[in-house]
């Protein structure tokens, strides 16, 4: 065996070796980018915004005056309409999440465990394609359907009924459930797919009927995926202001924040932002406990 002179290691190789010997530094280089971005850029911006909640505005010029005060929070707690809006939004988020779970489960189950390979592929594409259709356009299409003398009224006319028109908060429920449905179908589908068929067979071998198998085997296994999907439906509903404005003329948390985000009322917008932030942080903590983060 002939020996060849080994060329001296290049810069890249030496750097790699050095980093390998200093694993903490290697970790540091990996983390620098993302952590810097998330913590400094994102969290920093968020913190500054939330800080505004504790300030007030000069009533004449509308400029924010950085003196510590709790008056924004006081307003939110004492004026009844803000409570109404917050509860309405939270209620809507729960309703939409439950609706989406109920709608998503059958189709996801069908796709994951019953459909043939070809059908499954077709269904996945069919479910995903609308995600690419613009959010705004889908909302507007629903508006056309739900508006007075729109498609719904036209369809109900032969029966002598008429649709609710655009002044109903239920419209938001329908449209929001519609919009976030694919975000619920996909994780549930993925979760159901991961369940090995052998488990279900074993359960039936042990004498469990379909209902029991479902309740005691499938549901616990797919729960993290359901919770993962619900993170999207819940958070997207909490912050939306475009859909409520366009199809139901009612105000949600997002509307109040948006309406107040211009000069002069930023403290109120910032204070109200605490509501969805606290709710979502709590929700995320619970979701993580239930293992949803692995199923995202």
């Amino acid at each position: 065996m002939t020996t060849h002179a080994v060329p001296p290691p290049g810069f890249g190789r030496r750097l790699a070796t050095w980093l390998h010997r200093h694993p903490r530094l290697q970790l540091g280089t990996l983390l620098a980018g993302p952590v810097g971005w998330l913590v400094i850029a994102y969290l920093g911006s968020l913190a500054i915004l939330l800080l505004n909640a504790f300030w007030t505005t000069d009533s004449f010029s509308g400029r924010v005056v950085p003196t510590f005060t709790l008056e924004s929070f006081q307003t939110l707690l004492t004026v009844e309409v803000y409570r109404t809006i917050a509860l309405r939004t939270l209620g809507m988020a729960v309703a939409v999440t439950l609706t989406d779970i109920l709608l998503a489960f059958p189709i996801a189950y069908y796709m994951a465990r019953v459909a043939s390979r070809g059908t499954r592929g077709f269904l996945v594409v069919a479910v995903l394609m609308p995600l690419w259709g613009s959010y705004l356009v889908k909302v507007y299409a629903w508006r056309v359907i739900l508006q007075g003398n729109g498609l719904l009224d036209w369809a109900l006319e032969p029966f002598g009924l008429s649709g609710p028109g655009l002044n109903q908060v239920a419209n938001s429920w329908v449209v929001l459930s519609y919009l976030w449905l694919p975000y619920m179908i996909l994780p549930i589908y993925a979760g159901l797919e991961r369940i090995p068929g052998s488990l279900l067979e074993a359960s039936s071998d042990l004498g469990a009927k379909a209902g029991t198998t479902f309740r005691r085997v499938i549901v616990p296994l797919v729960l993290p995926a359901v919770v993962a999907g619900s993170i999207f439906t819940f958070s997207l509903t909490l912050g939306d202001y475009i859909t409520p404005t366009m199809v139901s003329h009612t105000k949600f948390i997002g509307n109040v924040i948006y309406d107040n985000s211009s000069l002069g009322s930023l403290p109120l917008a910032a204070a109200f932002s605490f509501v969805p932030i606290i709710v979502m942080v709590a929700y995320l903590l619970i979701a993580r406990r239930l293992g949803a983060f692995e199923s995202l």
Partner: protein
Amino acid sequence: MLESGWVRIGLRIMTGVTLAFIYLPLVVLAVYAFNASRSQVWPPAGLSLRWFAEAATSGSVLEALGTSIVAAAGATAIALVLGTALALAVQRYRFFGRETISFLVILPIALPGVVTGIALAATFKTIGIRFGLPTIIIGHATFCVVIAYNNVLARLRRLPRSAEEASADLGADTWQTFRRITLPMMRTALLSGGLLAFALSFDEVIVTNFTAGPGTETIPLWILSAIQRPNELPVVNVVALFLILLSVIPVYLAQRIGAETATVTR
């Protein structure tokens, strides 16, 4: 097959109903794309292709399309790099704050877009960055990171370290191992994460509304402005229809990739 016949029929029906529900507004949209008049009343007055012609020749539509694609590509690229780095760090090392990081990375997408938008806009203004394509990309990348992170992390968990160890034993340094062993094994995760991030960025309107500058319009911003103008409102339907039909390509690709992964890991 454990499900009884009745259950299967029921599932088929529900699937059909859900699909009909999903596609109802899209069908309405398609009908209106051929609407002969400008107004949005139902039923449409007649059928015509005039809005297709308008869309094809509209400079602002094409410009918005270009801006959207560039912004989405930029955001996806940044998200993939940051997400992969973060996933590698979290999966392979133990360090202080590891649990918190995975919580932190999901925040931008879990918190309301209006809050993220206002916060970022205020920061950009304070720093003095000119609003435009870069600020849009920064905004989008922030919530796209989690998509890349999740996909890569899920894949890394399933990857055997043995291949990488073997590579190191054979004398490869860190970059070579990464480039030749790890990256190819992660490829499908990167692709599916990247596609989803691209779609998310392409359609984002709320954060974009706050971080865009004058003269920079993405497709969603163009739509937001077009629905206020009676003459452009119908063009919106055409553009949306076109985007949905075009999306078959990436969606189909993503599905094929996903199917490959599924068979590989089973």
